[in-house]
């Protein structure tokens, strides 16, 4: 069961080779065993998981199973899950048991999947290393002295270490793709609006998007089919007909035009990463693809633009965590203002407070035009660069992250260095495009390298095909971390 994909597990369940309860117990025991070493989970509830597994088994026995019934999945602790502690990696929600399900959770419950647990993450999804979690850093299964990336580091580590066959995650500036790259798994950030944000705790509303993590592109296609769909409770959710994201998986790649933005291949990228990405592109050429050079001249502005807009939205989104109605409240305070100040000063970690301060500043009277309005204008320019590029190509490729997994603590003291680790992923969120990371090799110390695929709006099925065909020809995605 250890190395079976979601698709294989579902087939095994359907054929009654094993039960969901057996499968769930198997992963729960792995989670338990690996938790001290990896810290990938914040909450595990074995009883609840096994009860759901038994229910799935009844459905399967009654012939009422769907394609994912009984498959256990881990969920990022950003998704509100009815009856489960939902902390978003923060002390301020350390006592918050969600009274309702996020749309994504609802969809996976309806599909009959079993919740394996809630995965660790950077606090409020603010971070690229999982070091900002109130619940402690997550360790990378490939080298436990290194970070798994962030903010979906718990989900990524869980999938890489085979603690879960798949996991949900979210991506605001690279939080699915970068940890997927750093842990050698696959992650997909869909087109903005494809997956409902209802019940997904907001970081930066105009950028946040949920998506799946798994070990193969084929699994991502199955999971996206379950996650995506219109939800009237999210005004930014897109009303589109349901899609089968597996429908193009088998399509040959001959004639596919791959755009290579020269900005992705400039100096500054770790040579081992560049080498692995070049090799992957060579492989695509062998599969019959053409490559064309494209340019994203405004991409260099994406990090500063992002660090105006995302904190601005966050400063307002996080205002509701005030200790008044739910969540953690400072034990002692003099009056109302003091209650707010102490609750938020003690309830939020340093990175979250840094971003609230930046966001409050850029929205302040007298600074709004210079920062927020200007950043919005640049955001449109960045998006237009992609529109122009997609006139010349079908998919854009490059590295997901400029480096492989870095050591825990290495960048923690230097926020700007940390922010630059998302330099290749952020522009995709600003443009609202779908992006993906798949494993494409290793660096000299055996740490995985991720290849980033960026597609045009709503081209998820085609991107999954492009990734799947590569995975038919290579086995990077099937490599197992040492000791697993």
């Amino acid at each position, binding site marked *: 069961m250890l190395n079976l994909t979601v698709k294989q597990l579902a087939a095994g369940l359907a054929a009654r080779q094993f039960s969901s309860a057996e499968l769930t117990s198997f992963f729960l025991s792995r989670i338990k065993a690996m938790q001290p070493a990896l810290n990938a989970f914040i909450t595990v509830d074995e009883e609840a998981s096994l009860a759901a597994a038994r229910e799935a088994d009844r459905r399967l026995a009654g012939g009422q199973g769907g394609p994912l019934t009984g498959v256990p999945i881990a969920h990022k602790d950003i998704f509100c899950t009815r009856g489960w502690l939902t902390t978003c990696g923060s002390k301020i929600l350390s006592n918050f048991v969600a009274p309702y399900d996020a749309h994504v959770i609802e969809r996976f419950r309806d599909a009959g999947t079993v919740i394996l647990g809630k995965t660790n993450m950077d606090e409020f999804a603010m971070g690229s290393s999982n070091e900002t979690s109130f619940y402690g850093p997550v360790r990378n299964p490939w080298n436990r002295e290194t970070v798994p990336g962030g903010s979906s580091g718990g989900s990524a580590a869980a999938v890489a270490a085979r603690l879960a066959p798949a996991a949900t995650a979210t991506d605001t500036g690279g939080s699915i793709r970068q940890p997927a790259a750093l842990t050698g798994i696959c992650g997909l950030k869909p087109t903005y609006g494809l997956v409902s944000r209802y019940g997904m705790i907001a970081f930066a509303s105009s950028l946040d998007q949920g998506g799946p993590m798994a070990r193969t592109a084929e699994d991502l296609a199955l999971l996206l089919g379950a996650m995506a769909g219109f939800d009237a409770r999210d005004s930014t959710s897109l009303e589109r007909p349901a899609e089968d994201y597996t429908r193009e998986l088998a399509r040959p790649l001959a004639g596919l035009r791959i755009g290579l933005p020269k900005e992705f291949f400039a100096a500054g990228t770790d040579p081992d990463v560049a080498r692995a990405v070049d090799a992957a592109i060579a492989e695509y050429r062998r599969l019959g693809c053409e490559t064309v050079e494209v340019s994203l001249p405004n991409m260099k502005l994406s990090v500063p633009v992002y660090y105006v807009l995302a904190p601005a939205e966050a400063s307002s989104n996080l*205002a509701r965590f005030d200790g*008044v109605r739910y969540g953690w409240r400072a034990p002692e305070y003099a009056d109302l203002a003091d209650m707010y100040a102490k609750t938020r000063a003690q309830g939020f970690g340093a990175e979250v407070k840094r971003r609230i301060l930046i966001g409050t500043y850029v929205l302040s009277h007298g600074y709004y035009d210079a920062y927020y309005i200007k950043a919005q204008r640049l955001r449109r320019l960045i998006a237009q660069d992609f529109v122009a590029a997609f006139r010349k190509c079908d998919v854009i490729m490059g590295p997901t992250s400029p480096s492989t997994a870095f050591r825990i603590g290495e960048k923690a003291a230097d926020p700007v260095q940390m922010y630059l680790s998302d330099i290749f992923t952020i522009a995709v969120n600003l443009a609202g495009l779908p992006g993906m990371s798949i494993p494409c090799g290793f660096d000299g110390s055996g740490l995985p390298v991720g290849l980033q695929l960026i597609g045009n709006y709503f081209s998820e099925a085609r991107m999954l095909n492009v990734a799947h065909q590569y995975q038919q020809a290579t086995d990077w995605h099937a490599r197992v971390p040492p000791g697993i």
Partner: protein
Amino acid sequence: MNWEIVIGLETHAQLSTSSKIFSGAATAFGAAPNTQACAVDIALPGVLPVLNRGAVERAIRFGLAVGARINPVSVFARKNYFYPDLPKGYQISQYELPVVEGGSLAIVVGDAPKTVRLTRAHLEEDAGKSLHEDFHGMSGIDLNRAGTPLLEIVTEPDMRSAAEAVAYARTLHALVTWIGICDGNMQEGSFRCDANVSVRPAGSDRLGTRCEIKNLNSFRFLERAIEFEARRQIEIIEDGGTIRQETRLYDPDRDETRSMRSKEEAHDYRYFPDPDLLPLAVSDEWIARVRGEMPELPQAKRERFVAQYALTPYDATALTASRETADYFEAAAGGADPRVAKQVANWITVNLTARLNEAGIDISASRIAPGQLRGLVDRIADGTISGKIAKDVFDAIWAGEGSADEVIEKRGLRQVSDAGAIEKIVDEVIAANAQQVADYRAGKEKAFNSLVGQVMKASKGRANPQQVNEILRRRLVS
């Protein structure tokens, strides 16, 4: 020196939707605390606002009623500040691009007509309520009101006296209830005003520094607060002082305004477009549909009543004070000739209004249906009963004794217009009152009235008074 008072008003009209502006929770007044607050109103993590189309539709209706521009695209923004009854830490409101811009409202102050220009009207959500009593030194929060839809209606600084401000507020109140977008209940806070007041030397065209008086929830408080505030400002300036821009509160118990916060203490609300809501798009088709469903507005109805029923402008104004009154009148006067219509108008504005006031009920709950009132007026017009008897019939209908015809029949109130029958009574009265007959013939007109009274009494009030007069005179001459 002569001073001119300059006033602009911001009115919050609570829109009459059954659910909140961004959630499905109910908006009914008076429910137990926090029973009408759902996850969105409480601002649980991860929940999102979804705009209520009914609220937008009401804003469009208002815009059309005041001749304003309905913006094809408007934007919801977040107004950020911390307060315990503001669950999200921001209020969703419209800031740079409101749904309604421009327009005006015609008012009458005393006898003088005046036009007040409107700046804008925008949609926003209400906050909850902090309760400071009964919690042993702590405060309670009731979020039932959080998310209630409001239309904030902002005027230009066009009013020049408290009386004008009140006339505007009353006209606006009548309009928003007329077009059915607000229940107008001021005690429950459905209609409340903020007044921006400044003063300047008469003849000056520069605006003085203004103070904003918050949350005036009665016309009387509005009037008193403006009067006090203008006096206060004039006194300060005449004493050589300057006005500080600030927000003030009116204390009705002490009849004065008090400083709440100065401009320097004002919040920086850090407005920015709400990324959870798409820009609000209002299509021409939508506007056309709302226009098609608009009721006839008070002004138009007034003019039509004068033209169609030959009412006086005074009566037409009284009958269009509310849509219910106007509807009642039209239901009663439908198809009537001007003489009957005038009678219907009189019965409504005098007798019925008095009765409704006594009973403390609204015309829509009147115990006399429009058709019943018309039945009564028709019997007066065709001479079945006299105006005097009609008052008794009116009371009987009010008391639930049935239609005018039923009451007349049951009580035998039909007017006697049969000349023979009247002559018989007249002759009996003449025979029995020789002294008064002699007095009349000696030129004492008073004696005639007494004889008429005797005849009416003898007929139990049913004799046709006009016929009684004629017959009596004729008989006394011969």
